[in-house]
């Protein structure tokens, strides 16, 4: 009951505060403007930051944050040798490397070997430049994509060295291979394959993080790829022919636990270094990229946060300035209230409530505008934005805090007004 009375008294104080602010509508509005802009920029900043990090997280989730990819690349020394004559460069991850990796680390749940060849696929009269991926069934465990039709590769395909292929949805559409064409023959290069399944593929969104699959993939058993296409690939360019001998183009490894990702990556790196005198491989750890992306986000947030912080500070000082002017202007009113019997504490409360009401209203208006800004950013720049509960609650409490912090001094000044002098004040 007592609390109830106290509450209604508080509501009444707030109502009186609002009434007082409404007496000077323009002034109150201009005063609140600082907080409006401040809160606005905080909301916008948080939602843009949140959006960027969500996009990065989504990408990493698609790649798999538990995954580590090792790719065969020509070492820098080899790359530097400019040759006009035909020569063979041997580089990259070997089958032996793959066995060693798979056999050594207990933290590795799945390891997928990948052999890539560019070949033309033909079905009936249609052709499509395919990326033929020679791999194991583990690929489909790691790169989880919905199966549209048929099945994916199996262990028995490998054992039997079956000439079977799994197409992507996009590739199938381009080759007019629909559900009914499963079981039909697809020729890849000079060889014939039986289409056994169609999977969905993620359309690449052009971000830094490369997804493992392309929409022109055709998945075939690794040993079939090896026996059909061999390990040597000829690349012709103007005036030179280049032979590259690469056993595996890629190894993707899935680690059992996020906590083991970095240690496993280090272990693999050390192991590869032992057997490869030249650095002819490249390891990418999405988790490390995530960490990096987060560090970058933190830096951006600090910069944006200080800008927002400064505008809030300026807003708060603006409020304090006006409240000090208001105290001077209302010296007589304060004197009257004190003479009637108001305690200093009550004068402080009155002015503090006014300041907090002003800054909170500014905060709410700023929030409303601040929610629109990210939507506009998304509409015009395509940059993703996310408004979280946090990005609404934080600025709201900040605006209340500003009212309290910058209201205390003017309120204390009001309480120190001497009623005798104030009543003579004209």
């Amino acid at each position, binding site marked *: 009951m007592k609390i109830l009375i106290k509450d209604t008294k508080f509501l009444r104080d707030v109502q009186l505060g609002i009434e007082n602010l409404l007496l000077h509508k323009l002034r109150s509005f201009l005063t609140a403007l600082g907080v409006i802009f401040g809160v606005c920029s905080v909301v916008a900043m948080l939602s843009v930051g949140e959006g960027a990090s969500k996009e990065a997280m989504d990408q990493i989730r698609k790649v798999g944050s538990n995954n580590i990819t090792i790719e065969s690349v020509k070492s820098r020394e080899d790359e530097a040798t400019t040759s006009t004559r035909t020569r063979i460069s041997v580089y990259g991850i070997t089958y032996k490397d793959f066995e060693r990796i798979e056999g050594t680390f207990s933290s590795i749940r799945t390891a997928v070997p990948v052999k890539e060849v560019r070949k033309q696929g033909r079905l009936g009269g249609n052709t499509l430049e395919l990326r033929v991926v020679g791999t194991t069934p583990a690929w489909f465990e790691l790169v989880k994509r919905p199966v549209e039709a048929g099945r994916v590769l199996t262990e028995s395909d490998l054992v039997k060295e079956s000439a079977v292929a799994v197409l992507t949805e996009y590739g199938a559409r381009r080759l007019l291979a629909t559900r009914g064409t499963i079981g039909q023959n697809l020729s890849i290069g000079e060889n014939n394959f039986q289409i056994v399944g169609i999977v969905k593929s993620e359309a690449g969104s052009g971000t830094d993080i490369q997804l493992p699959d392309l929409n022109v993939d055709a998945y075939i058993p690794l040993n079939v790829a090896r026996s059909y296409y061999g390990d040597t690939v000829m690349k012709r360019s103007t005036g030179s022919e280049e032979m590259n001998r690469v056993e595996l183009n890629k190894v993707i490894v899935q680690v059992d636990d996020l906590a083991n990702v970095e240690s496993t990556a280090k272990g693999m790196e050390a192991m590869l270094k032992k057997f490869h005198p030249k650095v002819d491989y490249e390891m990418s750890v999405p988790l490390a990229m995530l960490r990096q992306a987060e560090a970058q986000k933190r830096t951006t947030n600090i910069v944006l946060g200080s800008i927002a912080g400064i505008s809030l500070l300026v807003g708060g000082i603006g409020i304090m300035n006006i409240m000090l002017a208001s105290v001077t202007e209302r010296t007589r009113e304060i004197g*009257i209230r004190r003479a009637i019997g108001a305690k200093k504490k009550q004068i402080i409360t009155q002015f503090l409530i006014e300041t907090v009401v002003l800054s909170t209203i500014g905060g709410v208006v700023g929030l409303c505008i601040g929610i629109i800004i990210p939507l506009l950013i998304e509409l015009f720049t395509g940059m993703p934005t996310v408004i979280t509960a946090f990005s609404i609650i934080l600025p709201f409490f900040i605006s209340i805090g500003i009212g309290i912090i910058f209201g205390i001094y003017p309120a204390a000044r009001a309480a120190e007004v001497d009623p005798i002098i104030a009543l003579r004040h004209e």
Partner: protein
Amino acid sequence: MINTQAAEDAIIKLEDAYKIYPMGSEEVRALNGVDVSFKKGSFWAIMGHSGSGKSTMMNVLGCLDRLTKGHYFLEGEDVSGLNDDSLSEFRLRHLGFIFQSFNLIPQLTVQRNIELPLYYLGWDPEQSAERAKELAKSVGLGNRLDHRPTQLSGGQMQRVAIARALANDPLILLADEPTGNLDTATGVQIIEMLRELNKQGKTIIMVTHEPDIAENAKNILIMKDGVIERIE
């Protein structure tokens, strides 16, 4: 000293009261040893030239100012040593002020102005609205509740001020030149109201420099140079 009333029915009593302001190396003795007591239900006019100490006396009696030395008994309680909060509490519960320049809060309506002491007393809004309406009616402004002070004449404003001073049902009304800003006819009306309130039992202390107005009080106290010159 002069005019020592029976202690038990004195509502106000100043004992050897000094108020000394330092002014550079000099000091100003606004009250220079005042002993006086006012009976409950009395009506006093305090007169004197400017600088005689009558305003200081009024501020001390109104618990707005503290004595440098001496004692002030209000209803038998020594308030001279009280802190700011306790003095505020005393003003809130026992005193009503009427000023020369009315001192209404301009942005508040008549009703809100009258309700002000009740607000600080923590009355609930309905009860205080009820009381404000009653008081406004009793001073003849029952139909002006929603007006702002600026929409009223001087006499009306002073009547609102009286209604406000009565809101907390005070023991003592302190009126500082209540007719100073009013024309003669209106001034007479206000004085009549004060006389009526005195008849109803309120103790009234009024500062004025107009002898005609002072005539209306039952007793007149004349100050000079911080001491009581005489009592009529």
